[in-house]
């Protein structure tokens, strides 16, 4: 066992590099996913058919085909059309598009749960559409969508383990290497999974902090989140909007590991 620990210590610098790759994939994918989600989420609820139609098709397409297929398609097939991406970019694009499609449903549902009166008041004040969304609607919808985005973020982290199969040296790769040099499956995989768990925990913690902050700005929830609340692993139940109590978003499906 002490040999193993020695090997583990020897490999710590490379663990740092591996975690960095996993984090690049996760955070890069998450940022892309958020952009995709906001664009498609708003696109899916416009009245103009030629915006709504394509948005719906893109969402259903990326939800309906598997992440694995999408990743390998971008890696193997896209170059045939003349678009060759670096492996890291392939990972980020695949994760971003796939989870972006899921997150767009969360965005759409949360936007729909913002009370209608908020839209009306911002029309009455003559704010432009973009201004309405940016300053009035989105800040309120944001607080509603964080818990579900938090779930998706952890799933995105889990999906990033695929990167090993397109030659990236991520945490999954590091785990395989550790097993090779220790020849101890239980030891190496337990360590690898624990590192994944710690990252997932840290991401959830960060999202809980964001949520508490967003809710505090809306004047709902405690002014300071309790320690227990900050440290809990699962996201809080969806809060109801402060002005008029509305039913939770009809469009939001709470399930949905892709």
């Amino acid at each position, binding site marked *: 066992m002490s040999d193993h620990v020695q090997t583990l210590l020897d490999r710590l610098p490379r663990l740092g590099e591996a975690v960095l790759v996993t984090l690049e994939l996760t955070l890069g994918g998450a940022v892309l996913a958020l952009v995709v989600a906001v664009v498609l989420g708003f696109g899916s609820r416009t009245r103009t058919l030629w915006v709504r139609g394509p948005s719906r098709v893109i969402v*259903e*397409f990326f*939800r*309906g*085909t*598997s*992440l*694995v*297929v*999408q990743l*390998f*398609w971008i890696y*193997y*097939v896209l170059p*045939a*059309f003349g678009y060759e991406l670096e492996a890291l970019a392939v990972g980020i694009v695949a994760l971003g598009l796939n989870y972006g499609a899921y997150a767009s449903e969360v965005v759409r549902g949360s936007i729909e749960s913002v009370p209608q009166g908020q839209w009306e008041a911002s029309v009455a004040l003559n704010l432009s559409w973009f201004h309405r969304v940016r300053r009035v609607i989105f800040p309120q919808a944001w607080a509603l969508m964080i818990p579900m985005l938090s779930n998706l973020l*952890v799933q995105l*982290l*889990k*999906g*990033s*383990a*695929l990167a090993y*199969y397109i030659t990236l040296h991520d945490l*999954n790769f590091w*785990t*395989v290497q550790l*097993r090779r040099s220790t020849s101890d*499956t*239980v030891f190496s*995989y337990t360590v*690898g*999974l624990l590192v*994944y*768990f710690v990252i*997932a*925990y840290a991401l*959830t913690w960060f999202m809980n902090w964001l949520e508490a902050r967003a809710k505090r700005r809306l004047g709902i929830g405690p002014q300071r989140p309790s320690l227990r609340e900050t440290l809990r*692993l*699962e996201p809080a139940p969806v809060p109801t909007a402060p002005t008029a109590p509305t039913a939770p978003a009809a469009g939001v*499906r*709470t*399930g*949905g*590991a*892709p």
Partner: protein
Amino acid sequence: MSDIWNWERAWEVLPDLLAGLRITVLATVVGMVIASLLGLALALVGRAPNRWVTVPVKFVVDFVRSTPLLVQLVFVYLLSPPEIPGLAIGCVVLGVHYATYMSEVYRAGIDAVPPGQWEAATALNLPRARTWRAVILPQAVRKTLPGLGNYAISMFKETPFLFAIQVVEMFAEAQSFGANTFSYVEPLTMVGLLFLLVSYPTSLLVRRMEIRLA
């Protein structure tokens, strides 16, 4: 386009893909049966009054849920004796992984049964086991059906992970065809479309069920 896409190759790979689809569906069905049963068990254990039971169970559930299925699959595969087929391992790991999600769905379903139902069962002096079986669970399970459907679709789309443990399902068929002929365009594109072809109509059905049961 025509020099990239070859219809002949597409026809050639289709039978392999359909054979793979059978394995994919089989893994999903078996995995989902395990997930539904184990998920219910986890939800019930999670309600036990003893903290020495609930806290460790909760930790294991959180751990399994927040670590990659792909890594879990390979881990269990490497630990298992070689005579157990990869498909069986795949089904079990898929089932256990999704059981951690399903337990949450059951928990929400059970919580959604109005307290008056418990009180009425107590007033009728029903034994505890009977209360669960005849009163609470039938109402709770009804509410969990859409969640079950959504997770079945998710699991279906995650079965390609089984390629990592040498199970030749639909994606692995495409992958090996691509590796042998050096043309990935037709097999990978068709796999994607086949996934869409199965999962999209299913998700429409689930949505309808959601509306019906809401």
